[in-house]
């Protein structure tokens, strides 16, 4: 009979420990009273506490050497590829403006702008190519 009572109280404890709202105030008081006077249940509670502490102290695996650097390099690569798209979009935007300006101001002005935009595109391409090569070497 006492064993059944212990079993009920232990189940109640689990319910309470997972969610204190699971038990009524009377059930909680009854459980506490039982645990205060029941040696096997006190031992059971102590074991549970030991398990909890032990779980908390379980050793974690160390991160494999080089993993963090590998992750950072992969993110940098991702960022670079996104940047290339953005920069080329910007360059093409410049080119579109050039075309529009050529149409507005005529060809004399256009020739200067064409030179300027071409240089801009070439510079960006060269810079991105260098970055990609450097990243390739690093990874």
């Amino acid at each position, binding site marked *: 009979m006492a064993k059944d009572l212990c079993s009920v109280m232990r189940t109640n404890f689990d319910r309470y420990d997972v969610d204190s709202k699971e038990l009524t105030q009377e059930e909680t008081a009854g459980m506490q009273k039982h645990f205060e006077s029941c040696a096997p249940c006190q031992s059971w509670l102590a074991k549970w506490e030991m398990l909890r502490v032990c779980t908390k102290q379980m050793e974690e695996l160390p991160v494999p050497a080089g993993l963090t650097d590998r992750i950072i390099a992969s993110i940098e690569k991702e*960022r670079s590829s996104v940047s290339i798209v953005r920069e080329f979009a910007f360059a093409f935007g410049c080119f579109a403006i050039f075309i529009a300006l050529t149409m507005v101001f005529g060809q004399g002005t256009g020739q200067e702008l064409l030179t300027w935009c071409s240089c801009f595109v070439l510079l960006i391409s060269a810079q991105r190519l260098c970055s990609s090569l450097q990243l390739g070497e690093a990874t």
Partner: protein
Amino acid sequence: MQTLQTYTDDKLIELTLAGEQRCYEVLVRRYTRLVFNIAFQIVKEEGAAADVTQETFLKAYKALARFRIGQKFKPWLLRIATNSALNVIRASSQHTSLDDLLIESPADEPRSKEDIESEVESKMLQEELSRVLASLKPIHRHIFLLRYQYDLSYEEISEVMNEPVSTIKSLLFRARTAVRERFKEMPEASKTER
């Protein structure tokens, strides 16, 4: 860099989105160990766990613009890690469905019956606990460790697992019961209350 390490996750994300790429690096360094260990719990293989870790941070980076400031970063990241790890297992030939994965219960490893000195009791208990946890259903083990090893709240676990809080509580209740029952099954010689 020294100062950045003291920033909150939210602040680091804000700065990353504003173009400060080194801030994401701080987040990577802050959570690599946790993500790697969570991934390892699921895939049980170091190389695969490392790949999952890398994939997790890359996916998170790509999705960062959709991250809501104020939401917690850690459970969001662990959810990506959990899903990535489950995908790895699903892709392996041994598992055909997520149900298989969650129901699977690995066989217990043979237990040593060697007597040990009292000063290594704690270590032995940890080893036994590891065996007990390894014998649990993966979903029970995962939730048990998220709660008791990594101190995640029910709400955070709910977010990681994409399940309602009530389901998490129910699973945790079953996991606790299973842990205790498996400890009871252990031979007396390998228990610490010798």
